[in-house]
């Protein structure tokens, strides 16, 4: 029964912590916008365009974190057949896809004035585009089968196979020295960025991550309810009066 108890406990926990994660999200992004748009200086080389960094880099962080979350949940779902893990993987991919999209678009808007081009087949840019397609493929596979369980399994295998791309994204700037600049924050030793710029970047980074957590919790709740509705409708169709229509088994 522990399998069925877990989603119920999760739902209760989620609705308790959700208002807090939402409040922290708003606070951090509000502070990040204040410091990023008003307090922090323009860059001596990039001028005011450096402010694009405060949305571009956090979007990239969340895009990769969401993928890691999705791949981890997929592994748990495949190995232990935990229904909640499958729902977490399913809930994470649209959010991850949205942030990958934002990362690509804001990067393009930054690349045009600074590199002179909207797009280049640079290693970092290309691996990020592959991440976007992995998310789209994951969402497509989930809905490609009549049996949601099979779709979940196929999508989980794709998520795990595609996980190789995450370290490739991370180290692409070191392995292929092409256009995109190397890491400034997540490097060994001290970050190579001025504190006046690091503060808004970290505020936005944690703020975007909390946004991801908040929306993920909402989506998992949505998916749990959707599974219950599906279960009730199935018992209605098959007209089994003795069957438990609560959908707990899918809960």
């Amino acid at each position: 029964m522990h399998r069925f108890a877990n989603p119920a406990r999760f739902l209760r926990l989620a609705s308790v912590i959700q208002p807090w994660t939402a409040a922290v999200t708003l606070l951090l992004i509000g502070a990040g916008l204040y410091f990023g748009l008003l307090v922090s200086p323009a860059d001596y080389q990039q001028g005011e365009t450096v402010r694009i960094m405060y949305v571009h880099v956090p979007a990239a962080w969340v895009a990769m974190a969401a993928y890691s979350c999705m791949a981890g949940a997929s592994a748990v779902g495949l190995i232990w057949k935990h229904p909640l893990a499958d729902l977490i993987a399913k809930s994470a991919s649209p959010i991850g896809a949205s942030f990958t999209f934002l990362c690509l678009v804001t990067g393009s808007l930054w690349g045009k004035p600074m590199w002179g081009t909207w797009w280049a087949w640079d290693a970092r840019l290309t691996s990020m585009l592959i991440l976007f397609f992995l998310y789209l493929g994951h969402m497509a596979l989930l809905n490609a089968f009549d049996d949601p369980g099979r779709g979940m399994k196929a999508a989980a295998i794709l998520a795990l196979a595609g996980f190789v791309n995450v370290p490739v994204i991370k180290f692409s700037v070191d392995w292929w020295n092409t256009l995109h600049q190397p890491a400034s924050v997540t490097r060994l030793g001290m970050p190579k960025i001025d504190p006046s710029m690091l503060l808004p970047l970290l505020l936005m980074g944690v703020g975007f991550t909390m946004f991801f957590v908040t929306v993920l919790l909402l989506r998992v709740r949505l998916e749990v309810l959707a599974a219950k509705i599906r279960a009730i409708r199935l018992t209605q169709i098959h007209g089994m009066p003795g069957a438990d229509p609560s959908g707990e088994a899918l809960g």
Partner: protein
Amino acid sequence: MDSLASYFSMGGYAGYVWSAYAITAVVMVALALLTWRGLKGREQELKELQDIIPGRRGRSHDGVAEKG
């Protein structure tokens, strides 16, 4: 007024900087709103389903009992 105008011009890069912020805001707000509406829709649907099935009353279920 001048300083405000020069602030919004972003050193001549207004189009790039504000577009980046605007699209980020639009995507994040849309994602949050669509998710919220989807959740409320499912809650409503589940409640209606449980109301038409006899013997469902009193068996409060996770995520359904609490109203938003």
